[in-house]
């Protein structure tokens, strides 16, 4: 399944928007980008490596030659690209359960968006507007976002410990090593294979 590489799923979605609404959405994104709290929930959910929204105005589809016909569109389009861990259903369930307000704020301007709750209608809409990835590359396919963050914590702890313990006696080292282990003990989950995307 080309939407998945290792532990990560590449979702693409395109939704039409009445051109009248586009500036409102752009303002919302501008505000979200400048308010740290807007990102806090996403970071706490901790299953997205990278995600982006891209507004493509109806006259702004790239045109590189006169031989290429001009687009004649009524709607502006909102593109969404996500790189997330977990299954399609889990991802949408989690968003609907936890972030429905944020989702509605972004997608209510899209035509026929049903709202993030109840989730079954939302899933139907996403299935309609999602299109499949043809080629997906992940530099660290065996690692989920959690694994990456845990790895950096372990690294930092190791560097600190290596530095501090350089000239310790064995007895001192023993105590310091125990402390080090308790520091990293929550971050040692194995990287590797994830479950089949259900």
């Amino acid at each position: 399944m080309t939407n998945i590489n290792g532990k990560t799923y590449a979702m693409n979605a395109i939704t039409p928007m009445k051109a009248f609404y586009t500036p409102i959405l752009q303002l919302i994104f501008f505000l979200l980008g400048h308010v740290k709290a807007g990102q806090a929930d996403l970071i706490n959910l901790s299953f997205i490596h990278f995600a982006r929204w891209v507004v493509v105005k109806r006259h702004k589809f790239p045109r590189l030659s006169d031989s290429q016909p001009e687009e004649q569109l009524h709607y502006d389009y909102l593109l969404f690209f996500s790189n997330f861990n977990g299954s399609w259903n889990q991802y949408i369930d989690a968003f609907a359960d936890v972030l429905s307000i944020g989702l509605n704020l972004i997608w209510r301007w899209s035509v026929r968006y049903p709202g993030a709750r109840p989730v079954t209608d939302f899933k139907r809409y996403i299935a309609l507007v999602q299109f499949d990835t043809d080629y997906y590359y992940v530099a660290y396919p065996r690692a989920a976002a959690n694994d990456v963050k845990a790895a950096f914590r372990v690294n930092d702890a190791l560097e600190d410990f290596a530095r501090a313990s350089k000239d310790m006696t064995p007895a001192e080292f023993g105590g310091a090593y125990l402390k080090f282990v308790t520091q990293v003990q929550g971050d040692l989950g194995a990287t590797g294979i994830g479950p089949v995307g259900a």
Partner: protein
Amino acid sequence: MPNQSGNVYGLTILSPIIHGAAGDISHDCAIRDYLAGLPRDHRSLFAKVSSTHLARLVVMDDVVFVGTPAREEHLQSKYLVFETNFDGDLDTYLERMAREAPEEVHAVWQHCVGYPGVKDPAAFAAYMKKCQIETTYFFADVNNKTVQQTLRALKLQSGVAHFIEANQGKSASEIQTAFRQFLEKVRHAPEPLAGEYEGHPHLPARGAGATGRTDPLAEESEGHHG
């Protein structure tokens, strides 16, 4: 600047695909066909352009009709969507694509309108930028670590877990000696390969018969697995 989050650049490119056929296959099908056969692991073109965290290529056929009262409408051209998340600046990245993965880049983008070839990396970069769409809102969970830092950290994490397990119950001086050796190994460990994964990328671990875990820092990265 919305294209950027910390040190990571979120590039979105929509390249119009040439209408019609290239020989006996249409240009968009030719792209899809080619991509289907391309390796996605450490042999990927994006592993060569090694500042790439995650990247995708998608042939976008058309917009979606979501149902009445929406108006039905269609794109005049198909577009090759290129979504990538990488370290560093845009021009460097685009020129690296042309320089370090010319074969794959040419095979894909030759089917797109206005593509100037890969021989001149600056011209290629300029062409790609003509197709760039500004990312409106970009989220990056980790935005301050490079690909190489990430790969090394993951390998080290694995090494630490293995070390703790292997030295459990030993005396303090034994652990201290082993730790010094461990740090040496870490210092001399080969650079991990971007894009590498073992076995099937998304099937669950099999039952009995799979190999036991070995010390990840003892592995040589000879370009094994596929």
